[in-house]
């Protein structure tokens, strides 16, 4: 029975990111709010990347999870502000990412304009922990990931980009 905002969050904690199935939509920080009115539920969600093809899937998954939990009606509102940041991913979720083989994001860059060149600290390898790694490409298998290679264990790995 869904009676409170917390109940809705508890259900959504079981809705996994389709691309990274070890962290939930709540872990990811994209669930911004929820409200219950009788058996109708309203969820406010913000997209990770604006072109992320998983967003439709996520919306569908949220609906079916809430309907399965007893909601008669589910409204999913999409908001753009404040813009999603990986700083909303908590320490536990970061550890889940690392254990899954994806280097968790570092701190997001400050708002505003950027310097075009940067000396970025190497991202530690999620497999062997070495810091002797190099960036292969800023763009990886999904919008949210970059590709790195570990010089120690020779393993290529994904990084959840700080964003």
């Amino acid at each position, binding site marked *: 029975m869904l009676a409170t905002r917390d109940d809705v969050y508890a259900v959504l904690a079981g809705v996994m990111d389709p691309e990274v199935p070890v962290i939930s939509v709540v872990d990811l920080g994209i669930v911004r709010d929820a409200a219950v009115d009788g058996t109708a539920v309203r969820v406010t969600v913000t997209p990770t990347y604006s072109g*992320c093809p998983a967003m439709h899937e996520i919306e569908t998954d949220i609906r079916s999870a809430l309907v399965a939990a007893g909601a008669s009606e589910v409204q999913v509102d999409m908001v753009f502000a404040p813009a999603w940041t990986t700083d909303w991913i908590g320490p536990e979720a970061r550890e889940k990412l690392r254990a899954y083989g994806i280097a968790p994001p570092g701190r997001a860059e400050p708002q505003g304009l950027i310097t075009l060149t940067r000396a970025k600290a190497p991202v530690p390898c999620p497999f062997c922990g070495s810091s002797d790694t190099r960036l292969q490409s800023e763009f990886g298998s999904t919008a949210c990931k970059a590709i790195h290679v570990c010089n120690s264990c020779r393993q290529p790995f994904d990084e959840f980009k700080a964003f």
Partner: protein
Amino acid sequence: MSHDPGEPGGLAQAPRPNAEAAAAVAGTRTTRVENPLFEYVLRLGDDRLVLGHRLSEWCGHGPILEEDIALSNMALDLIGHASALLALAGETEGKGRDQDALAYFREAVEFRNALIVELPKGDFAFTIMRQFLFDAYSVLVLDALSRAANEKVAAVAAKCLKEDKYHLRHSSEWVVRLGDGTEESHARAQRALDELWRFTGELFDHDAIDEAVAAEGIVVDHAAIQSVWRGMVADVLGRATLKMPEDGAYNRGGRRGRHTEHLGHMLSVMQIVARSHPGASW
């Protein structure tokens, strides 16, 4: 199609097959437009839709796998931006058109993108150089818009800006790599820059639409942005050992619906599925 030159007045009297669409070309730069905010957001959305499509043409054709993935990722981001902006444009217009209706069921003359984004993708140097010139412009405009009093525009701009910063860094790094690379890559990068330069002026045009949206809480100082842009471009070109072209005559017209022939061809590819199967879903 051929016209019989022997038939006097035949050409003048022939119905214009595209007369209705031709009426969608906006008037002169000082003409009053019915819904300037709609036009303004359409410009933002169309730039990103058209450029996103051009980038997507590299999918499966990138020079190396990582770059194929990068260009496709950037295409996806830009189409995502276009989707949000065109949805907002449709809402602003208030005639029931959503982002798909605006993307797939408008003619070339109804598009408001700048000409630079519709040019064919060319070689990799051309694609990268165009991307760099546009990205540098885009981050500056989005940064200004993210502080606009119009909350809806500001929210979408702030979102897009975060992603565009990645694009700019990527394209800048490639400009340096190509310009300061081999003789071949240097020559191609310089040629691309020389070809593209005359299309950059249009990005900073300030017209009646820009004036009118000030009342809607959108104030972007194009002259100030252009001067910052020149500084950014000069910095990267310097490191890339490339020569900034001299300013000359600029090509313009896209903002008012006067496009190169390339846009129509691109739209025929982009729109055919939606137009062949209107309302299809899967």
